């Protein structure tokens, strides 16, 4: 019998990764302040939920953006018919302007280089299809977003070769690491077509400094390979140092611009993953042309293009949003990291992103990934938090976990912190007489926690739709 394809029956979709096991645990028992106060709190989902009131207000005050006004109904027909893969000019202009503002106005983006895609997920796959043939490779610094294994490889046949970065120098991308990866690819007979960096980094939450960026641009020019900069978290830089984009660096160093491409999206900066607004911005005309044709496979709904065009062309709204968003993120990040440090939990120093890179190396029984998995299972099943183990990000050192902080309200954050604090107290107590079984003390802390959380002022309204992160397009 003629079966279905190898792609469909293989596991290139990446969903068998332990990364998703935590989601499964969350799915079966999701936290709800009233209905399921003992449920698992989702801290494995990099979503930005901190600015919705501000955005919602704008949407309510601008019905024309939702095609709701009297003239809007007329516009409806035009919008419903608009399927031009160039995208609405006003949409491209608004997005280009937004991208410029997010970079402090230090660089301008050309609306004609903006190509739409089905979210950043679609953008990455599309760029891979444009730049590489099956069997060719991209270098990717570790730790990196697990979805890249699917987005860049699954249907494209492109290989990913890790550029190993280490905690000893705060996971910096060094020239040595780049060269080592390049050599490794060569030894494996893989032709390297490009280097993909995520800046600001997921999962690290850090930005690349100027020197590193310049070094990277030099490297790719020397090897004549592409540089893809995933800048999806550009507007989440909430603290100094200031974000430096690839688009700025190429103005300062000599570079073959045909090698430079940026992937962007509104899913993280604005918190709109549902609207599927992905962008490919390339300095290479042939890539823009090819990507534009490929964008037919994942155009942005014209209804959404219209909404975004209206929203992002409101300069006043955009300027205030960028500031508000940073303030909320800073506040939440500060509170979270401070509370953690008070119970002896450290994290990589970060100034961006929707998560922290938590250092739990000292909690490992031994320095192995098995021990990391053991600890992770404890965190999910006993502390009842879904966090993402570093191994799923291809981190080469066990004990690191990505913990998201921007996808919940203040009260849920309190609950999460309390659970962590309780766990750490028990752990610290248990550390003294080391032979005591840790699990017993965790069980005790469980029953104690229940009483703590029944107090009414911990409750807050929660989204009516149960979040199902197992089936997310992107985390």
């Amino acid at each position, binding site marked *: 019998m003629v079966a279905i394809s190898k792609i469909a029956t293989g596991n290139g979709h990446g969903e068998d990764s332990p990364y998703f096991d935590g989601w499964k645990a969350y799915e079966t028992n999701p936290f709800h302040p009233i209905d399921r106060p003992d449920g698992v709190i989702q801290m494995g989902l990099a979503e930005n939920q901190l600015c919705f009131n501000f955005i919602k207000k704008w949407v309510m005050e601008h019905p024309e953006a939702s095609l709701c006004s009297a003239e809007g109904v007329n516009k409806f027909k035009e*919008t419903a*018919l608009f399927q031009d893969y160039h995208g609405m000019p006003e949409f491209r202009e608004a997005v280009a302007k937004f991208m410029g503002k997010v970079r402090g106005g230090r660089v301008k983006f050309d609306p004609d280089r903006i190509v739409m895609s089905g979210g950043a997920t679609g953008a990455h796959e599309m760029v891979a299809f444009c730049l590489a043939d099956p069997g060719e490779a991209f270098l990717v610094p570790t730790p990196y977003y697990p979805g890249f294994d699917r987005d860049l490889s699954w249907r494209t046949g492109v290989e990913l070769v890790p550029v190993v970065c280490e905690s000893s120098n705060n996971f910096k991308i060094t020239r040595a690491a780049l060269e080592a990866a390049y050599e490794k690819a060569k030894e494996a007979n893989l032709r390297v077509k490009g280097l993909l960096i995520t800046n600001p980094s997921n999962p690290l939450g850090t930005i690349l400094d100027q020197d590193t960026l310049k070094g990277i641009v030099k490297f790719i020019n020397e090897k004549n390979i592409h540089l893809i900069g995933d800048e999806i978290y550009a507007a989440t830089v909430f603290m100094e140092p200031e974000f430096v984009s690839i688009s700025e660096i190429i103005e300062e160093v000599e570079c073959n611009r045909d090698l430079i491409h940026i992937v962007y999206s509104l899913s993280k900066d604005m918190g709109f993953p549902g609207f599927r607004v992905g962008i490919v911005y390339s300095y290479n005309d042939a890539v823009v042309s090819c990507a534009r044709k490929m964008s037919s496979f994942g155009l942005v709904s014209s*209804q959404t293009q219209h909404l975004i065009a209206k929203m992002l062309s409101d300069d006043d709204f955009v300027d205030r949003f960028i500031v508000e968003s940073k303030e909320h993120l800073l506040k939440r990040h500060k509170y979270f990291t401070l509370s953690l440090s008070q119970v002896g939990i450290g994290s990589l120093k970060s100034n961006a992103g929707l998560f922290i890179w938590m250092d739990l190396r000292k909690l490992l029984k031994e320095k192995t990934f098995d021990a990391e998995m053991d600890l992770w299972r404890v965190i999910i099943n006993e502390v009842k938090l879904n966090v993402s183990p570093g191994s799923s990000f291809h981190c080469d050192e066990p004990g690191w976990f990505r913990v998201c902080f921007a996808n919940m309200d203040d009260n849920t954050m309190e609950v999460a912190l309390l659970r962590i604090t309780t766990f750490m107290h028990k752990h610290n107590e248990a550390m003294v007489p080391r032979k005591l079984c840790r699990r017993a003390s965790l069980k005790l802390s469980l029953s104690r926690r229940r009483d703590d959380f029944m107090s009414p002022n911990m409750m807050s309204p929660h989204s009516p*739709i149960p979040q199902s992160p197992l089936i997310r*397009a*992107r985390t």
Partner: protein
Amino acid sequence: MGLLSRKATCNTHGQDSSYFLGWQEYEKNPYNEVNNPNGIIQMGLAENQLCLDLLEPWLMKNPDALGLKRDGISIFKELALFQDYNGFPAFKRALADFMGEIRGNKVSFDPNHVVLTAGATSANETLMFCLADQGDAFLLPTPYYPGFDRDLRWRTGVEIVPIHCTSSNGFKVTLPAIEQAYRQAQKRKLRVKGVLITNPSNPLGTTMARDELDLLINFIEDRQIHLISDEIYSGTVFTSPSFVSVMEVLKDRNLDQTQVWERVHIVYSLSKDLGLPGFRVGAIYSNDPVVVSAATKMSSFGLVSSQTQYLLSAMLLDKKFTKEYMSENHKRLQKQQKDLVSGLEKAGIRCLDSNAGLFCWVDMRHLLKSNTFEAEMELWQKIIYHVKINISPGSSCHCIEPGWFRVCFANMSESTLKLAIQRLKSFVSSIGMKSQSHQELKSLRRKARNNWVFRLSLQSFYDREQDTTTKVSFSYRPHFMSLSNIAATLDAAA
């Protein structure tokens, strides 16, 4: 060695096809009733613009749908965050019900078997990725939608092998043609993974008869391959015969819950039936849970915007509205098609008899200087640059007979259609063919009244074709044969 991928530098995207070149010419000089009355009239775009005015009152009555509210309260946050690739449950339910309604509820669709994609473009590509490996092949009846060359082949590496259909039997699919295509694939050392049909057909505007569907089901059962039925125009069937989906035939033959049931997949979209191509709403429907699962994961590369899912779930759940909309849709399509067909007839141009779609398959073979594709291109260029109408040449649809053109009628007002017909009339009379063909048509009608002669001559014609299978269940369409063929058979009978 190239800096970009082979995919980026080849032209499998198909955009160099004449199909798209016509659009480019139109873009340079588009007709506008007021601003550019001498511009090119776009009849190369299969869009349904006839009923959009019906949407407006519905939108006014249901402000929550566009306003992203539920019971007057904003659910903006909920929608902005909703990225579940299983889709909005209410939307999939509404879509499944809508698909059932279109098929007269003779089949029902399970929302859990629906996979949402960014338009049918994405649905077709995704199915290829799910069902075929690079270098495998799918058989497609010609003529077919030019976009398939890109959608099915470009990034997937899958090949298309044509099943050639001809005007001799109204372009119906025959067993010899399918088998010939299969042999051709084998010669090219391509593993055939399935057959893809478009029903109702683009560019023919016809629905497949039961016997054709039976034929296809038998074939895929026999070879143990897949059948994809792109039913994107299922809601545009404006007159009899009524639409019969392959799912209905499977059910009637008690083949549901068998292996072949799991190898039949449907592609759908709201771009043609509802006239909403900008919203990018496509769907794959499969009875194979493995395909549904794989396609769902792949849909991450092109999900439907939650904003749009919300709007359309509200619209499709209003069954009274959709019933009225579809009924009015059919009426307007039928009228517009009739206007085009009769207008063309007065210019001495015949169309393949059609009952669906947003276009007619027009026979301009008698206007060709020679029976060649060069002559077809020459005629097409005249029509674009002198007649100022963009239509799609049959060669861009891989038709093997030169002289056929797809002419769209649903993307314009009555008055624009009249103008287009007027321009064509003038063109035809200017090349002196009009009176001659008009006379021939008159004489044809006289002769057709003598039924038994006609039937006898046709029978001998089909005997010549040695098409024993279709002779048994062939549903004769007494509407059309080419002028030259009619002349030949009548001579033979005389």
